C-alpha cells in the first residue's frame, strides 16, 4: 500500500488531497488516481495525460514516472510551478 498526495493546481482542481492505493510503479498509479478524482469531481476535466505530465517524487525525492514503488512509500504528484 502506498500513500499518494496531490499538490498544486492538480489538487485544487481534482478535489483530491490524498489517497492510498496498491501499485508497483508510479505508472500503475495513474488509473487509480484518476478513478478517485472521477469519484470526487466527475467534471474536473483531468485525464490520465494530465497525471502523466506531472512531476513525481517518492519519499521526498524526485523520480521519473517509471519508478518502482514499495509498500509504505509516499508519492507526490505536482504540476510545474513558477516563481516569486
Amino acid at each position, binding site marked *: 500500500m502506498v500513500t499518494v498526495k496531490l499538490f498544486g493546481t492538480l489538487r485544487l482542481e481534482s478535489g483530491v488531497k490524498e489517497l492510498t492505493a496498491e501499485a508497483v510503479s508510479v505508472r500503475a498509479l495513474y488509473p487509480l488516481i484518476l478513478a478517485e478524482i472521477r469519484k470526487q469531481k466527475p467534471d474536473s476535466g483531468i485525464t490520465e495525460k494530465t497525471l502523466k505530465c506531472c512531476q513525481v517524487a517518492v519519499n521526498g525525492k524526485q523520480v521519473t514516472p517509471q519508478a518502482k514503488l514499495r509498500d509504505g512509500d509516499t508519492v507526490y504528484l505536482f504540476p*510545474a*510551478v513558477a516563481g*516569486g
Partner: protein
Amino acid sequence: MTNYCGYMGKVLLLDLAARTTENYIWTDLDREKYIGGKAMASKILYDNLTGAEKPFDSENLIVIATGPLTGTGAPSSNRFDISSLSPLTGITSSSNCGGNFGFYLKKAGLDALIIRGKCETLSWLEIDNGEFIFHNAQELRDLKCGETQAALQEKLNAEHGKKVSCGMICIGPAGENLVRFASVISGERAAGRAGMGAVFGSKNLKGITAAGDAIPSIYDREGAAAHRKKWVNDIRRHPLTGEQLPKMGTAGLVSSMQVHGLLSTRNYGKGQFEQFEAVSGEALAEELTAANSGCLSCPIRCTRRVPVDGKTVKGPELETLGLLGGNIENDNLEQICRWNYELDELGMDTISTAGTVAWAMEASEKGLWKNGLRFGETKDLSKIFDDIAHRRGIGAELAEGSKRLSEKYGGKDFAIQSKGMELAAYEPRRAVGQGLGYAVANRGGCHLNGGYLVVLEGLGMNVNGQTPHGKADLCMVMQDLMEAISCGGQCLFTSYGAVPAFMVRNPNGILQRVINAVVPFTGPAVRIYNKIPEIACFNIPLIPYPTELRYTTGMKLSLGEFIRIGERSYNVERAVNARFGVSAANDKLPKRLTDTLQDPGNPKTRVPLEQMKRTYYRARGWGKNGLPGEKKLRRLGIR
C-alpha cells in the same frame, strides 16, 4: 520634453531642505539607452553619487522612477522603482513595487522624481499636477502604514473638498526609526527590499501623494491594442501565468521547492521542512484564501487575500511562507498571514526581518548571543517585530540586520546574506545557478536581481540544479532580460511566458527531457549571444517587450537591442557600486552554502561559487576584480 510617447517628458529634482524643484535633464538619447525605471535610476545615481555619501546623509538621493509603459494599460505595467543608497548594504539598490503610486506619478506629469536633502521635521509631500506642497506630518508619527495612508487620503479630501483620486507611498514606524530593512508601502504593496523606508525616514519624509490629470500618449493606439489583446491571451493560456499564479500565487512553490530540496529550513541548515504541507500554497488556498487579486492592469492576479483580525488583507508570498515557516521551524499558517500583515503595517521587509530572526535563533542556540529566541518557539514574534520597528530591547539590535549582528557576535558562516542583504527562501545548494545569482546580484542577496535561475533549475523547467555548467552565461542573459523588462515598468512575472508552455506542461516528455539535459551545455552558445546580442536583429513572440515598447513609445528596438539595454543597466549599477567599494570580494555567500554540504552523502550539494564567478566575470567582459573596465563602460555608452 520628449519625442517619444508613453513618457511624460519630465524628471524633477526636489530639494527637501530648500523646498525647491528643478528640471533634471533627461534626453531622448538617455531614454533610448536606459528606457526608464531601474536603469534610469541607476544612471542618475551614477551621474550624481561620488562614493563618499552615506545612506543616511542628506546628500543621498532617492530616485522614484516609472517606465514608459507604466500607466499605459500594457499588461502588468503598473510597476515603479525606488532606488537609493541602501542602509542595509551601503551600496546603491533598487526596490520595485506594484502599488498604484507610479501610475499616479505619471498622472501628476512626472516620469521620475529625484529627492535630495532632508526635511527639518517629519513631513509629507503632496504632488498635484506637478505642483509640490509640503505638509507637516508630526501627527502621523508612529502611525502604521494603513493608518498613515487613510490619514493622508482624509487630509487630501478635506483640503480639496472632494474625494481625491491619488496614489501614495509611505513609511511606517520602522522607516521612522531607521530600521535598516524598512520598506516603503503603496496601498498594500511594498517596495520591500534594501531599506528604502529607512532612507525616507532619514529624510523625515513620512509619505508622498500624487494626483493629476495628465495621461501618457500612445504612439500607435490600434497596434498597441491588438498587441496587448494577443499578449493578455497568451498570458492567460500559459500554465504558469494563466493557471498556477492566479490560482495559487507564488505560494504554490512551497511544495515543489520541498521536493527539490530548495525550501530554506532552519536558517538554511536544510532544504526540506518536515511540516511543509501546513505552510504550503495548497493549505493557503484551501484553508485561508478568500479571493485573489492583482495590481492595476495585471491579467495574472497572483495576490492571495486572506483573513486577519476580521479584515481581508494581502496574503503572504512564497518568500514569507518559507522564511517565516520552515526557516524558523514554524508550521502555523495563520500566524504567518498575521505576521505578513503586521510587517507590512510596520513598514518592514518580510525577507530581511525573517532572515535576521532566523540567524538570531541559531546564534542563541549556539550560545553566541543570549537573546531568548529559539527555533520553533514563535508565539512572541509579533512583539519582537514591533520591538524591531521601534528599536526597543533586542529589537534595536535586530534592526541592524544579520550581517552587522554576525560581525558583532560571531556566526558569519550562518548569516544567510550577501552584501548585507538577506537571501530569499530558495536554498541554493540544490540550484547552484541560483546561488551564483545571489552572490553576484548588484543589490545583494536578491533572487530576482540574481537572474532567478531556479526557474530553470527545478521550478518552471527541470534543468540539473547541481551542475555549474552553463550557469554563468545563463545567469547573465537572464539578469539582462529581467533588467530590460523592469525598465519598461512591467512585472517580471510576465517573463514566464518566455518559458515555452510545452516545457512546463509536460516535463516528462522525451523532447523536454532532452532539452533539460542539453541546457547546461549551451553555455558557449549563450556566451556568443551575450557578447553580440544584436545578432538577434528581430523580435520573437515569446519576448514581446520590444514590440510593446514600439507600439507605446515609437522606439524601435530589436530583441538584441533590448537585451543590450538590460546589460547596460546591469553595468551602470555595478559601476556606481564600485565607487562604494564593491568588487569580486563582495560577491560571496556564507560558508554554510559554499562549504557545507546540504546532503553529507552528496558532494555536489554545495554552491561551487568561485568556479562559476570566474566564468561569470568573463561572460560579462569584466576584470578579475568583478568590475566593468573603462573600455566596457565606453562600449556600452555609459561613459
